[in-house]
């Protein structure tokens, strides 16, 4: 029941916000209130959750019995964490919208809430068709949010995003139908295993577009740099994790054989994404470009953990998904705050902002260090677990991943210094204010969660799957 409530609350609020003839301020306030209530609801759900107890808070209503389709929702340990990521980052993103006073408020907040609701729906789905519906529903608000509230090249960004995701979605739809019909049920919990490589590849490509993995990332740069910062935060932080969920909950349990057969290809693709993203991040001319490609690299890392299908790797992948979601959201919001001050995100025009802005300096430094996974941080713990997990599949993957640690240090330090250090850039006049209390209130919760996870990464990695036997739990066979 709680799960349905978590899905319906934002969706219903979206409808209210959209239809009610309220003023801009009231609309914003109402939307923020709904988002915060959602956070509270989720937190209550975590407290009462039994992390050893399998899928919980379930709710099933059969809809289309002949085909075995049902409205079936509930949370497993790792999906509860991913939903929490969506809810928290979503609330912060709405808060950012309130802070910058987005125009066309009713449509904007309606879409944002609709986005949150459908992402939570994705993470809660225990039925494949329902998963597909939420997956598609989540994309619509994104198209509009980027296309209407985005930067100067927003139309082009939206177009490429639509084209890529449309192609992915069509493939996935075909796979969903083929798999469901073939199994006689769409229930993710009841369906058996399939050995069909083509159905498998349909899913994999769809998720590879969403994450994105090389070479399906063509939409990434434009979408991440042209979207409004808070939408980019949700897009890179949260929406990309639906691919992680899909792979862990749809693909791994139902396609163990194809995963095994194509493992080398998948792992090579993930490793290549990691290196490619990290290298390109190092050469990006603007702050958001660095964050965008670093996100791509990090998704490659997470996928290394997923495709390894080892206990350690999967736990690490979930931990890193949560970490990356929080830190990339924080970084995109900070990029937005810097852009608002200086009118540009161009690295060559920025710099020297640490002087006289102790709060900005501290926050950017802390966030940047977590981006580059400084040892002791939550991202380091996730990275360590993933690489340790993939080591058993071949030391080469771990070696490439270790090389990426150095690359991450290179682009991470470049990111920090581009904003904070050296002489003042051309776009920095010197009287830009330090971070305001309102802005701090947005970034600090994300950083606080990351700090807690740095001191205690086991909170997520130890509770994502029942009793440690992750790979066994997921694939039904020892990993």
């Amino acid at each position, binding site marked *: 029941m709680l799960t349905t409530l978590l899905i319906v609350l934002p969706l219903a609020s979206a409808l209210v916000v959209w239809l009610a003839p309220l003023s801009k301020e009231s609309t914003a306030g109402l939307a923020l209130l709904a988002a915060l209530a959602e956070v509270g609801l989720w937190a209550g759900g975590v407290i009462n959750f039994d992390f050893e107890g399998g899928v919980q808070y379930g709710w099933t209503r059969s809809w289309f019995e002949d085909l075995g389709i049902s409205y079936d929702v509930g949370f497993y340990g790792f999906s509860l964490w991913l939903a929490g990521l969506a809810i928290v980052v979503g609330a912060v993103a709405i808060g950012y919208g309130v802070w910058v006073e987005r125009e066309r408020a009713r449509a904007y907040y309606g879409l944002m809430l609709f986005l949150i609701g459908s992402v939570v729906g994705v993470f809660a789905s225990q039925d494949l068709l329902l998963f597909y519906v939420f997956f598609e529903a989540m994309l619509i608000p994104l198209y509009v949010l980027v296309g209407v509230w985005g930067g100067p090249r927003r139309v082009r960004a939206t177009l490429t995003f639509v084209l890529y995701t449309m192609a992915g979605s069509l493939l996935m739809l075909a796979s969903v139908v083929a798999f469901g019909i073939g199994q006689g049920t769409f229930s993710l919990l009841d369906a058996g295993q399939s050995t069909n490589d083509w159905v498998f590849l349909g899913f994999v490509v769809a998720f590879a577009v969403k994450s994105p993995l090389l070479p399906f990332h*063509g939409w990434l740069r434009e979408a991440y740099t042209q979207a409004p910062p808070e939408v980019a935060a949700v897009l890179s932080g949260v929406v990309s994790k639906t691919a992680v969920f899909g792979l862990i909950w749809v693909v791994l349990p139902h396609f163990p054989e194809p995963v095994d057969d194509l493992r080398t290809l998948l792992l090579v693709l993930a490793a290549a994404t990691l290196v490619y993203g990290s290298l390109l991040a190092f050469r990006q001319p603007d702050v958001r470009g660095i964050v965008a490609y670093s996100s791509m690299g990090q998704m490659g890392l997470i996928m290394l953990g997923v495709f390894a299908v080892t206990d350690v790797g999967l736990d690490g992948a979930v931990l890193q998904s949560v970490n990356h979601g929080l830190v990339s959201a924080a970084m995109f919001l900070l990029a937005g705050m810097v852009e608002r001050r200086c009118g540009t995100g161009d690295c060559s025009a920025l710099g020297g902002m640490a002087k006289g802005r102790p709060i900005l300096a501290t926050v950017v430094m802390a966030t940047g260090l977590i981006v580059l996974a400084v040892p002791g941080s939550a991202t380091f713990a996730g990275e360590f677990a993933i690489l340790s997990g993939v080591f058993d599949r071949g030391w080469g993957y771990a070696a490439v991943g270790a090389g990426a640690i150095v690359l991450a240090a290179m682009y991470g330090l470049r990111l920090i210094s581009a904003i904070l*250090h050296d002489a003042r850039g051309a776009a920095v006049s010197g009287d830009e204010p330090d971070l305001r209390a309102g802005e701090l209130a947005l970034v600090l919760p994300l950083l606080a969660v990351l700090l807690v996870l740095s*001191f205690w990464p086991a909170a997520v990695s130890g509770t994502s799957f029942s009793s440690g036997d992750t790979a066994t739990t997921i694939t039904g066979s020892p990993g």
Partner: protein
Amino acid sequence: MTAGAWACLLSPLVGAGAITAAGTRITRRQAGWIATLSVFVAFAGALVTLITLLGKEAEDRQHLSVAYTWLEAGGFRADASILVDPLSVVMMLVVSGVGGLIVWYSMGYMAGADEERRYFAYMALFVFSMLLLVEAGNLLLLLVGWGLVGLASYLLIGFDHHRPAAIAAAKKAFIVNAFGDAVMALGFFLLISRLGTLDFAPVFEAAGNGALSDTVVTLAALGLLGGAAAKSAQIPLHTWLPDAMEGPTPVSALIHAATMVTAGVYLICRTHPVFEAAPEVQHLAAILGAATLLVAGLVALVQQDIKRVIAYSTMSQIGYMFLGAGVGAYGFAIFHLVTHAFFKALLFLAAGIVIHHLAGEQDIRRMGGLRRFLPRTHLAFGVGTLALIGIPPLAGFWSKDAIVASALATGGTLGILLYVAGIAGAVLTGAYALRLYWIVFQGEPSPLVLEHAAGHGDGHAHGAEDAAGHEAHAHAEGPTSMLLPVGALTVLAAVGGLILIPGLWKPLETWLETAVHPLVEASVAEEWVTSGGAVLAGAVGIWVAWRAVSAGRELVPWPHLRTVLEHKLYFDELYDRLLSRPAQLLAARLRDDVEQPLVQGSLDEIGRGALEAGGGVARAQSGLLRSYAFVVTASVIVLAVVFLVVR
């Protein structure tokens, strides 16, 4: 039982957190005091731990205290735990003791600098990280401390963040160390894959009883050595240390002399069972150490920056420690680590007074005759220099000679070669150390020195009236907060070596033996033969340097060799060509030749195709969007309706 050790670990973290959280609500001085006191509280905690351990039987002196499970993934678990044993206690005492003195000194040195609070928060963060490194109860936590000291080092080298040189040096240090971390992590992945754990006891046991294959042990040891060499600036991962001198001088003293850079030596001693199971790697450590001590000693002969001379000297001395650890003389390696922390911190802090006095000048060619104007600093620097050269009975004499004697006791060709390197290094040490001392303090005062002597006279007069400025100008040599720590270190550098007299009086050796048992033990005869040789070598170095410098000549008269040495044997240039530039070129190529044309270009094609199909640019763009949004929305609604109806 371990409460003292936990307090020792956490106190500086609390200090750093408090300064950060308080922000501008506290004054700069208060921030300085918070940092200093938090580190001295850590020292008190270390003392309590020492006393507790002293009250125990030798075999009961090892305690693992687990707080909670830090990382749990699959079947792998790593706890947040600390290991208290004789080795970690010695390190705790050095880190918090010398650290406390240096943070205290910083209060005078940094007075009036921009963003002083940030400086003290970073210093406290560093001390916490270093304590985490030495107290860590398993290899993963050790790696965390390992990375965090690198972070603090980065933050402090780049403290003057508006200076591009400082930021570049900070980045370089971080990236070289990240490379070391990555190599070490790879070794750990291997251990996890074979043993499923990174706890000390099972790893050491498996290394010792042959449960791990030779290849695995060798690779794991190589991983550890890679991390150790990067952190301790040993060849070939040494290039970051001289550049790190861009940081404030107390930072150089604490991080790049007394503590962090010696972490590699601690690591080898801590994980000695792994190295002993892979003797080739352990010997490689000794060989790297010998090579570094010679190369760094040679380069130090021609440097003109006061801090860089001391930096190369640090590399060279850590080379001795690696040599010691590499031949299995763990106790002596740690002994030299301790005495080196005293005399090298002293040299840096004394150099800091010189730099402070000369308003930031670091070029020794502009110095001279400072003994008249800075008598106390002259004394301190002199004691530090003699201790460094290893003149009895000062600290460096006992520890360095013990290491060289152990090399002799190892025997074989390797032992002889290492012994010769150690003695040759002693000549070099004598030469560069005396050269530095002589140029800076002896001879006639340089124009710069005279100018500042006059300037400080004025400052003194005003200082008496101005209460706030009083401390800063109380004496040309600096405020008491600078002089007292230097005084304390002078005493330690003079008598600190007496905690161990090889062959005769060895409380430190016995103390450490229960934690790390040495592989070699030099006979008393070998000790004294070595000592004689080493002292003679040092004297030769001194004599050569004195002859050259007092006559105004350079130590290395051959111009070609000078050029090579001034370019530090071209390591920087080599890495730039071999690694840095190709990586940048590859990244640029990928961006311009792959990402742009393939991804964005094909997008343009797709886009144009779609536009042409739709006819009319604007209409097509929004039309395509709208129709897709419509189709998807419609299908979602239809599906929902179908579900509801059919149900």
